[in-house]
C-alpha cells in the first residue's frame, strides 16, 4: 500500500464511509466485497503514479474517477424489498364444481333407482296388497320427480364449471331415468289400451 498524506488518507476514508452508507441495505459480505474491491481499485490507480507519497490532489483525482459514493447504492437488486409472508386465500374459480352441487347430482342419481327398487321390492313381497301397491306407486312417482328436480337443479348450477363431466352425467342420469320410467309405461299402457 502506497503511503498517503494525512489529508489524502482522510479523504479516502471519508469516501469509503459514504459508500458504506449508500450500500447499507446489502448483506455484510456484499458490503465487504464492494469496499474491498474499491480499496484495490484505488491502490491500482495510485500504483501508476510516480510519487512515493500520495497527496490530496492525487487522491481526489482517483476518487473523482470512481464517481459519487451515492451511485453505489443505485445498482438494481441492492435493497430487496421484503415480501410479507402472508397467505392469501385462493380466489374462487369455476374450474371445479361446487361440492354442494356435486352432492345434489349424486343424491338425484341415487333417488331414481332407489325409489324404483323400493317399489319393486314391495310389489314382490306383497303382490296382492292393493293398498300398499298404490302407496308404493305414489312413493315411486314422488321419488322419480324428486330425482328429476334434483338433477335439473344440479345441472343448472354446474353448467359453468369446467370440471363437470361426472356431475353432469349423474344429473342427466337422474333426469333421463325417471322420464323413461314414467313415460315408457304410459306409452305401453296407451298402446295396449287403444287396441
Amino acid at each position, binding site marked *: 500500500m502506497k503511503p498517503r498524506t494525512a489529508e489524502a488518507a482522510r479523504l479516502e476514508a471519508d469516501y469509503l464511509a459514504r459508500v458504506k452508507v449508500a450500500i447499507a441495505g446489502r448483506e455484510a459480505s*456484499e458490503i465487504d466485497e*464492494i469496499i*474491498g474491491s474499491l480499496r*484495490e*481499485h484505488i491502490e491500482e490507480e495510485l500504483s501508476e503514479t510516480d510519487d512515493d507519497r500520495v497527496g490530496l490532489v492525487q487522491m481526489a483525482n482517483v476518487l473523482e474517477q470512481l*464517481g459519487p459514493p451515492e*451511485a453505489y*447504492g443505485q*445498482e438494481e*437488486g441492492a435493497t430487496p424489498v421484503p415480501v410479507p409472508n402472508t397467505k392469501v386465500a385462493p380466489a374462487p374459480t369455476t374450474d371445479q364444481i361446487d361440492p354442494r352441487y356435486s352432492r345434489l347430482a349424486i343424491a338425484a342419481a341415487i333417488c331414481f333407482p332407489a325409489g324404483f327398487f323400493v317399489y319393486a321390492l314391495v310389489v314382490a313381497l306383497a303382490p296382492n296388497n292393493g293398498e300398499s301397491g298404490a302407496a308404493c306407486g305414489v312413493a315411486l312417482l314422488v321419488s322419480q320427480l324428486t330425482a328429476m328436480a334434483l338433477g335439473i337443479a344440479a345441472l343448472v348450477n354446474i353448467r359453468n364449471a369446467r370440471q363437470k363431466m361426472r356431475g353432469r352425467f349423474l344429473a342427466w342420469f337422474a333426469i333421463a331415468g325417471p322420464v323413461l320410467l314414467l313415460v315408457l309405461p304410459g306409452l305401453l299402457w296407451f298402446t295396449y289400451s287403444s287396441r
Partner: protein
Amino acid sequence: MQYDIATRDSDRPAQQFLAMTDSKWLSQVKRGLLELCVLNLLNQEGMYGYQIVKRLMSVPGLVAGAGTVYPLLARLKREELLTSSLEESPQGPARRTYVLTAAGRRHIRSLNETWREIAEAVEEFMAGDNHSSYR
C-alpha cells in the same frame, strides 16, 4: 411572470415527463446490458475487478463505472453466478479475481440466446428508421 415563447407552458409537463421516462428507460437498459457484458467478459476468462471496470469504461455508450460495476459484481457473487478469490500480484496490490461458476456459464448462455432473439426482433422494427446508423 415570464413566458417562454418557444415552449408553451402546457407542453412543459409532457416534455419533462418524456425526458424523465427516457432517461429512466435508458438507465434501466444500460443496467441490464451491463450485466450481460460483465458475464460475457468473464465467460472468456477470469478477470480482476479493476480490469473489468477499465474494460467496460473503454466502451463508449455503455457508461459503466466503478459505482455500477462493483455492486453488480457483488450481487452476481451473492447469486452464485461467479466467485472471487484474492491473488497476490507481483506488480501491485492483491487482486480480487472473478471467475464464472457453472451456474454463471449456464446463465450467460441463456442470456445470450435471449438477447440475440430480442436484438433480431428489435432490428426488424428499426428497419424503417432511415437515419439510423445501427446497421
